[in-house]
């Protein structure tokens, strides 16, 4: 009887632990390839960002929202554009190939993918060597993008985007690789970077 009771209690505790949502953490890792080889790792619980962002007030940042007037996208209805892409099938929607760089914008399931690859064909040989293989990969869930653009045209709702990020288990948001720096921003439930 005693063993059974203990078993039930342990079972309930395990169930409770599993039922409670694990903290999500946003990680930022920057590794510089220069002679100093600086390395920066930042690990922030999303719940901390959610709690702190509404308390920060500066001229451009207030209530978790940042003013971005004067930028190109306050002239374009990004929300409508995003919604149109979200409703269509998976595809590569934008491909820009230039001398300097290739840009691809695609939809894959619930994610918007942006890839930038530097070519630098007109650069000097020295620059070509340093810029060859420079890539930027951005993966944004449509829910997060919508949340980010949920305010007026001249505003980014960072707080809403962070809240939307909370729904995702593991998510590679941004990867930047160039000759000098390696930047990675991702979300998972580990409290330490790799």
């Amino acid at each position, binding site marked *: 009887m005693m063993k059974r009771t203990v078993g039930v209690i342990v079972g309930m505790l395990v169930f409770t632990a599993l039922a409670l949502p694990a903290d999500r953490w946003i990680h930022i890792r920057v590794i510089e390839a220069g002679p*100093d080889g600086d*390395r*920066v790792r930042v*690990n922030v*619980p999303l719940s901390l960002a959610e709690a702190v962002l509404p*308390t920060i007030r500066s001229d451009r940042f207030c209530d978790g929202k940042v003013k971005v007037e004067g930028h190109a996208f306050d002239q374009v209805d990004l929300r409508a554009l995003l919604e149109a892409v979200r409703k269509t099938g998976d595809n590569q929607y934008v491909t820009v190939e230039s001398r300097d760089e290739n840009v691809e914008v695609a939809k894959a399931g619930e994610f918007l993918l942006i890839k930038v690859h530097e070519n630098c064909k007109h650069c000097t040989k020295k620059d070509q060597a340093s810029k060859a293989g420079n890539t930027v990969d951005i993966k944004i869930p449509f829910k997060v993008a919508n949340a980010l653009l949920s305010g007026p045209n001249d505003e980014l709702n960072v707080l809403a985007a962070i809240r939307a990020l909370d729904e995702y288990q593991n998510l590679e948001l941004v990867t930047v690789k160039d000759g000098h720096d390696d930047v990675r921003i991702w979300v998972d439930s580990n409290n330490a970077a790799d």
Partner: protein
Amino acid sequence: MTAGMAILAGALGVVAAGTVVVCNEGAVRVDVREKSRGSNHIHLILPAAVAPAAAFMIPRSKLHDARDKIRPWLPTIKAASVELARCADGPLVEVDSRREHVRIFKLRGSIFIDVDSDEETVHVSFPLEAAADTVSQLAR
């Protein structure tokens, strides 16, 4: 037992209880060691329970404009303290360069800040519970 002994026992009990409370709250620790010749070394350990009271006792004239600078950030510090106290232990910020190593991490309800540079080493630790109260007193 005489009345004197009873009073002494009571006083010792109060002191012991106070010590337990103070120790349970943890300590604020500041350790700064300069690396140059003839360098200074500052080492300060303050029970966290008395940190807000100590902050309260600092004369306002000595705080200059610190109060005005801290005050707008009080809600942020309070919100951060509450959330950090709730989240798991672990590294928050790590910076490694040729000249400087910085670690900010949370461990057992306290924040630890370690800086090791060419000029000095700095270790600061404080319990999260005391942080918001102490800063509130500085901004009063």
